[in-house]
């Protein structure tokens, strides 16, 4: 069972996703999480502490949206396309509250520079993890490729959320982008040493 702190943060995340940052108060979180009044204040003394707690929580949840229930991503172009496709589907579907909360918090960060440090720390953690993932999957320019993939996926989610495409084949689109990068999967070159187009 999730600990109390996580329960509070998930409730806070839903609130921000549904009502925007204006909906975020300690009392509203108490009510949404069905805990005694004052519980949220005990864990998060200030509003800023609460917002930083939410940032921490959505990083954990976003990572779970990528790696799935078994916390495993196949280290290949297809594996990365599948994992990012899963992320996009969840971000516009069952985990839409996480997405809307993330937008609300990013906009708040744009206006309130005090939140940037916490956001930057979270972003660094995600980058470190994602860099090792795509390097393992064969990226020859991990910095470039991660930058493109991360911005692309963010844009895709933002567009799909407002304007869902009728036949949205997200894995194929991500796979097409990865194909332009020319990844060389280590496994592929080991198994097929005679393949001359893989250098």
């Amino acid at each position, binding site marked *: 069972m999730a600990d109390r702190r996580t329960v509070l943060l998930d409730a806070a995340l839903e609130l921000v996703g549904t009502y*925007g940052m*204006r909906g975020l108060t300690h009392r509203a979180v108490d009510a949404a999480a069905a805990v005694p009044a004052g519980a949220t204040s005990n864990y998060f003394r200030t509003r800023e502490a609460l917002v930083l707690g939410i940032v921490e929580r959505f990083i954990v949840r976003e990572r779970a949206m990528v790696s799935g229930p078994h916390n495993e991503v196949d280290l290949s172009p297809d594996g990365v396309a599948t994992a990012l496709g899963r992320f996009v589907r969840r971000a516009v579907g069952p985990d*839409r509250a996480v997405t*809307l909360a993330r*937008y*609300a918090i*990013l*906009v708040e*960060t*744009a206006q309130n520079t005090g939140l*940037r440090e916490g*956001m*930057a720390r979270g*972003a660094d953690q995600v980058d470190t993890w994602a860099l090792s993932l795509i390097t393992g999957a064969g990226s020859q320019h991990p910095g*470039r490729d991660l*930058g*493109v993939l*991360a*911005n*692309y*996926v*963010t*844009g*895709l989610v*933002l*567009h799909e*959320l*407002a*304007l*869902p495409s009728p036949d949205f084949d997200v894995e194929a*689109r991500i796979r*097409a*982008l990865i194909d*332009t*990068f020319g990844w060389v999967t280590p496994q592929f070159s080991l198994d097929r040493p005679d393949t001359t187009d893989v250098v």
Partner: protein
Amino acid sequence: MEDRRSQLLDAGLELVATEGLGGLTHDAVDAGAQVPAGCTEECFPTREALIQGVTERCIERELEMATGPRPEIEASPEGIAASFGHFVLRALGEDRAVTLARYALHAEAARTPSLREFYAVGADTADTWALDLVRRAGARHPERDFGIMANYVTGLVFHELALPSPEFDPVDRLRVLIRALGWNAP
């Protein structure tokens, strides 16, 4: 002279950017645009009409941000990198309000399906124009590449708005992406 409609909608856009859609009322737009009370209601009788108007205006201004002061963009990789890069700088700088309003409108469209149809019409106008440009600049898969670039630019603006990179050079980032997409040499 700027017409009355644009004047009202620009004031509406600023309101949405600073206060969210909750701040968008007919009275607030009258005050923001410094026009006599009732003007906004005359032009946009319902709240829905007002939201649609602001959405339309957002798309108009984004198109203007992309084309810049020059109506013509050179149809080459460098011309496109410069023009998309210019869009990113304006979206983060002088036209930041357009960007923030757009996120609020997108989130609203996510919650209100009736707004989507309208948003789709505006989105198509901008897409047709850009798709043609990308094709003429040498893209071998224009639809794929424009889709990639449009989503990339959206994500780039979004991330930079919250967490600005030191020495941010969007033109160079676009150049790197276009190179990866393998366009024909001009």
